[in-house]
């Protein structure tokens, strides 16, 4: 079935690489080093640009303004994976906003800038809420159309002065200092704005919000099962990008004096996309250098091109941009940022602490975890959340759970049809605290579809799912996660470009609350939550014996270890109900035994666990009850030893060769045939 939706696996890189700004997040010198590097390049522009011969100080202003635009592209496309091509519209809102408010309303230019930014942010939020239901390239073209419409409106409306444009009025000023476009002082205002934008973007990316963004980019389904509301985080990234773009637009208006529509064509968006790609879509610190490279390239082309071929110089720009965009994507898909990454990694590896297990999280959390030390379980000083998990006293921080422990999870008559094919037909399940239910059946029996119905990744056609007594049928996955359900996936769905620790921290997403504002301004809430999340994540990693791999990129781990990380990610959510989809697949016999022990231990902590598994030895060892599915129907639910002996199950699934058991059903066994019409001889 081909539809416009792309698979969630849109990947901008083929190899798993953690961005260096994340890997070095706990090094105090890393952001300062980046800032110093960019600052040095920017503040010296008035000196070295004229020295090159074909650039002027004015190109420096262009660099700073486009840096802000490129940062928005990096945030939304690089970190969140959303192709938003309305940059020219947001840029225009800032520019025309300043001009119109200053001229028509007589507003102070600074106030005009602020009002425009708020308007751009609000508009972005509105558009975001509407269009983020669309995915991938569909989103790209719809937003490009929005950019095109915005350009036509700028060009036509009388409010924006039509084709002749609109003059801006008084320049930005503080006291007697006037920052008019041609002044050197204005260049420093722009540089400061660009550096502040860099810090804002970097702080946003290295935080709980940033992890959620990257998780959404890597794997939206898995992020949702950890409780991440994908739309919300996409909108956050878009709004931050829009505000930065609008401020850039206001600065541009102040710089040119007369705002005309020709500065806001779709070509601007393409140019910003090019700059972000050259800088590296995953690289905050690469963006300014990408802009610098493109501006220098463009000026050189215009200045030397006509000497080579005797044609109007401005005609070269479009084809030059296209060629550079293609060449960079083909030859250096990580952009300049990937070169910087390599250098920064080399610098980092000189330092002795680079090998410890704490990179990738903030300093505060490192101090906190050093109380317990790597490799050992938290002691009595362990945080309350961990204690609760260990002792089974599940005080739920998120929503109340039915005090009656009899029905953690209850599914009644869950049916699921896909265009005429009935994948599930009236499957029921009841799960109590401390219980492990095994789910078996041949391929295509509907086991994973049943999990998807429980976790909200698929909407059941009919039937009811209750978690702790609350009806959650048909809720989106991120809301079901809030009711205490966590899961793993049959085909491991990790976030490959994030460290193991970060993967598990995303799992703990709901045990913290810090939002974008506390991340951007590094408020106390940010530091507190980073600590809580890292502690929870470390504890979960230790339970699956993966603590020492915390700093590895998850995508570089072997299969069996990825399975464990995925289980740790589910555990970090401190769920009441855990769904494990083939957790023993690909594990050795001894690893499978460890898994059995872990599942038992978790059940003893009064979790309820449902487990799909083809490894019968492991499953029969750990399950309290076993439900058998076949062709979407529930054959029976019974004790493991009863299932093992059931002739119907043996005929349809287990087979006789490897089970030396009598075909006769034990007398008095409480086998329940939920579907009496099933005739095993009739099926193939």
């Amino acid at each position, binding site marked *: 079935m081909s539809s416009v939706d792309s698979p969630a696996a849109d990947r*901008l890189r083929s190899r798993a690489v953690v961005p260096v700004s994340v890997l070095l997040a706990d090094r105090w010198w890393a952001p300062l080093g980046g800032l110093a590097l960019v600052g040095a390049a920017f503040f010296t522009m008035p000196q070295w640009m004229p020295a090159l011969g074909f650039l002027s100080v004015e190109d420096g202003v262009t660099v700073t303004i486009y840096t802000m635009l490129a940062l928005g592209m990096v945030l939304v496309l690089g970190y969140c994976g959303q192709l938003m091509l309305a940059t020219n519209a947001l840029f225009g809102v800032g520019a025309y906003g300043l001009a119109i408010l200053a001229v028509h309303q007589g507003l102070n230019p600074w106030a005009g800038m602020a009002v425009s930014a708020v308007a751009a942010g609000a508009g972005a939020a509105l558009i975001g809420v509407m269009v983020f239901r669309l995915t991938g390239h569909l989103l790209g073209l719809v937003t490009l159309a929005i950019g095109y*419409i915005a350009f036509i409106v700028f060009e036509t409306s009388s409010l924006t002065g039509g084709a002749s444009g609109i003059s801006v009025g008084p320049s930005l000023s503080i006291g007697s200092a006037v920052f008019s476009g041609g002044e050197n002082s204005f260049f420093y205002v722009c540089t400061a704005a660009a550096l502040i934008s860099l810090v804002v973007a970097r702080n946003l990316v290295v935080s709980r919000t940033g992890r959620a963004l990257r998780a959404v980019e890597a794997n939206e389904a898995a992020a949702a099962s950890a409780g991440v509301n994908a739309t919300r985080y996409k909108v956050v990234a878009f709004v931050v990008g829009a505000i930065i773009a609008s401020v850039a637009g206001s600065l541009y208006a102040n710089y040119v004096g007369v705002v005309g529509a020709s500065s806001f064509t779709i070509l601007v968006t393409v140019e910003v*996309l090019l700059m972000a790609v050259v800088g590296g879509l995953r690289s905050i610190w690469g963006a300014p250098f990408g802009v610098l490279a493109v501006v220098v390239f463009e000026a050189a082309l215009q200045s030397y091109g006509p000497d080579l071929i005797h044609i109007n110089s401005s005609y070269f720009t479009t084809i030059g941009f296209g060629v550079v965009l293609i060449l960079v994507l083909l030859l250096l898909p990580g952009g300049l940022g990937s070169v910087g990454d390599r250098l920064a990694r080399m610098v980092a590896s000189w330092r002795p602490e680079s090998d410890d297990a704490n990179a990738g999280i903030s300093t505060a959390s490192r101090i906190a975890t050093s109380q317990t030390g790597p490799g050992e379980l938290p002691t009595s000083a362990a945080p309350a959340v961990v204690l609760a998990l260990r002792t089974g006293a599940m005080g739920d921080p998120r929503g109340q759970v039915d005090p009656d422990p009899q029905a953690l999870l209850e599914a009644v008559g869950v049916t699921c049809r896909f265009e005429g094919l009935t994948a599930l037909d009236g499957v029921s399940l009841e799960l109590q605290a401390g219980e492990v239910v095994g789910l078996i059946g041949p391929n295509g029996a509907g086991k994973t579809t049943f999990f998807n119905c429980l976790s909200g990744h698929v909407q059941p056609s009919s039937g009811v799912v209750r978690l702790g007594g609350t009806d959650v049928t048909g809720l989106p996955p991120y809301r079901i996660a809030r009711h205490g359900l966590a899961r793993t996936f049959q085909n491991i769905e990790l976030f490959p470009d994030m460290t193991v620790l970060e993967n598990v921290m995303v799992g703990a997403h709901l045990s913290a609350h810090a939002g974008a504002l506390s991340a951007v301004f590094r408020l106390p809430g940010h530091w507190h939550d980073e600590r809580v999340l890292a502690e929870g994540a470390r504890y979960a990693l230790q339970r699956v014996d993966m603590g020492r791999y915390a700093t590895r990129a998850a995508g570089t781990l072997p299969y069996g270890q990825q399975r464990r990380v995925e289980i740790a990610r589910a555990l970090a959510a401190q769920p009441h109900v855990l769904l494990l989809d083939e957790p023993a697949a690909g594990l050795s016999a001894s690893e499978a035994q460890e898994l059995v022990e872990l599942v038992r231990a978790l059940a003893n902590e009064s979790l309820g666990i449902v487990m799909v598994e083809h490894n019968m030895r492991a499953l029969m060892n750990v399950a309290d009850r076993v439900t058998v599915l076949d062709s979407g129907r529930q054959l029976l639910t019974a004790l493991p030893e009863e299932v093992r002996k059931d002739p119907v199950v043996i005929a349809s699934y287990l087979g006789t060769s490897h089970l030396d058991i009598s075909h006769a059903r034990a007398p008095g066994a409480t086998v329940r045939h939920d579907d009496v019409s099933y005739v095993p001889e009739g099926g193939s």
Partner: protein
Amino acid sequence: MGWMPTLCATGIGQLPETLASGIVNGCIYALAAVSLLVVYNVTGVINFAVGDFLMAGAMLTLLFAGPNGDPHRLPLALAVLLAVVIVTALGALLERLVIHPRRRQGTIFLLILTIGISSVLEGGALIPTGSLTYGLRPFTSGPALSVAGVLLPRQDLWIVGSTLIVMGLLWYGATRTRTGKALRACEVNPIAARLVGIRVDRYWTIAFALGALLAALAGAILVPVTYATYDMGIPITLKAFVAWILGGAESPVGAVAGGVGFGVLEAVVLGYSPASVANYGDAVPLLLLIVALVIRRRGLTRQMAVTRV
């Protein structure tokens, strides 16, 4: 329908002409939308450069057919043929050089690559044409024909006729030829197609070539009724995209219906709205459709899926 009263007020007499011009424009959108569809269904790539392939077809036709008095000009049929062949080869070449090396990357990555292709084609046309506009005489000269009281310029009939013939050939090719069947196999199930010995990678090239061919042909038949400029591509890409989605994004029949539907909608909206609105040109139908798309996208595609089954 809500807009009927206003329409009567403006004068019903122009309605047939308005609808006819909508259908003619719609044929161009339909060809471009089918071009998008062919490439997308086989490769999963949205070809952002579709409008620029169309522009290249128009520009090359102009180059070869030349102004009326030019002694070096080629016969029109030959000019169109040459233009289409060259653009088709260009589509195949760009796929091999640009898309092919990165075909394992995600679709967004590939979409950005086609944006690069779009800039190269646009820039490549800008250097020789220097942002001037060019027009071409109609394929057959003579006064507009009157069909059932409606005046139809001759080139309009060329456009509608060519579109019908091309769609018929496409249908024949897809269902009756080996290559067509293989292309559709790649579209339905690339893995199974590979298992039965179809070289799926090769069909990426064929799909891009076929997409470029359809776009180039649309450009060639369009150029007598509109002026060609180097930057005419992006608005056409956007409209083709809208037509493609509007038609359910799944079948060529849907894409044609979407293209013609969008063309008619555009003509009616712009023809019957007050000048203060009509001044915004392309923005008006695009905005209407984005709103419809965002609100009702699921419904639109599902309806089409059902009718297809």
